[in-house]
């Protein structure tokens, strides 16, 4: 080794970046050079001292209430913040019989039919009418929407109550599927806010709602197997 060890060389030595031959050269040099031996010892002590600093610190105040508050606020705030760890179905369940599950299937079919009604209502001929006929597509869709929401709520309550029956992988897949669908619903709703007359977006939204109901229905049925 010619001359003294530079700073980069000392750091590389301490951090283990040198090849064995280079390392041996440094070892040999510091045995003979008091100055480099001193500098290396200072740097080594410094790195050791920094590494020995406490790894934990106590905040001035407990920040958990703030964390808890922010989590709760975000949950109440709606869909903008997602909490995969939180069941999206309610904790208190009601008993749903197989007959009710069957009823949910009927709603599914009904909503599916509703998409046809909606598509029909959006045809140029239908849009000429300013007031939907009594008993026509709009009341039908409102009824379907109401039944859809009830069916979703009931199915979610079943899943919350019976979630332990489903395996963790199934549960994870279910949550992922529902999350994707809910994201798609949100996207469609956002797009509809921009373009409320889009037939395509209306149909897309209904398709997403159907998919959600279908997944919930299948999962609730699986808990009964």
């Amino acid at each position, binding site marked *: 080794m010619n001359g003294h060890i530079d700073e980069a060389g000392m750091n*590389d030595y301490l951090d283990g*970046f040198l090849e064995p031959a280079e390392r041996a050269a440094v070892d040999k040099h510091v045995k003979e050079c008091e100055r480099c031996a001193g500098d290396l010892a200072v740097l080594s002590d*410094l790195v050791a001292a920094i590494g020995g600093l*406490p*790894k*934990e610190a106590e905040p001035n105040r407990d920040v958990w209430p703030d964390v808890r508050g922010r*989590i709760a606020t975000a949950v109440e705030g709606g869909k903008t913040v997602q909490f*995969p760890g939180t*069941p999206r179905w309610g904790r208190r369940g009601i008993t749903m019989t197989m007959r009710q599950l069957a009823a949910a299937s009927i709603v599914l079919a009904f909503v599916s039919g509703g998409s046809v009604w909606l598509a029909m209502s959006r045809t140029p001929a239908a849009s000429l009418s300013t007031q939907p006929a009594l008993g026509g597509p709009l009341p039908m869709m409102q009824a379907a929407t109401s039944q859809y929401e009830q069916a979703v709520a009931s199915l979610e309550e079943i899943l919350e109550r019976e979630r332990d029956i489903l395996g963790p992988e199934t549960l994870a897949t279910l949550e992922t599927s529902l999350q994707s669908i809910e994201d798609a619903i949100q996207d469609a709703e956002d797009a509809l806010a921009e373009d409320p007359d889009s037939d395509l977006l209306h149909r897309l939204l209904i398709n997403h709602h159907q998919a959600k109901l279908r997944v919930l229905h299948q999962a609730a049925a699986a808990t009964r197997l």
Partner: protein
Amino acid sequence: MEAALLRETKAGSESGVPIEDLVRNAQMGDAESFEDVYRASVGRIYALCLRMSGDSTAAEELTQDVFVRAWQNLGSFRGESRFTTWLHRLAVNLVLQDRRSKGRRRAREKPVADLDRYGRHARRAMPGTRVDLERAIAGLPPKARNVLVLRDVQGYKYEEIAKLTGVSLGTIKAQIHRARALVREALDR
């Protein structure tokens, strides 16, 4: 890095339940278990945020952000690494992201406005720590401080730091060498 975290994790949570079990409960929506996770981890996360930000108020806000983000992302934790490693990495990313989002204006600011105040807080928050060393680290320029904390305090490998910061390995090495030299100078003053 792993070894250091493992030692800390062995201590477990205050409730005596292994942290991995608490995490599993929290993933199922159990907020009480998540609070236990917080209690078991907050000291390490706050220390990291404090040293990287050099400011106790900012560190508290960042600590909050870390745990809110952890709760949001619990579903993505699959147990492929230790939870403490996952949480720590999330915290590092968040602190670095926060710094980037503050933009160039803040980057030009003096790293820590009041080192005396910081030193007093460090003494209170970390009893037994070397306050002179804490002040010297806090007095570093932000980028140098971040890499020094990650490397020499937290034990991250150079390659990991390069990946986390998106900076080349050579630049990280140069920053760490410079940071050590600056700390040494500050201690000699």
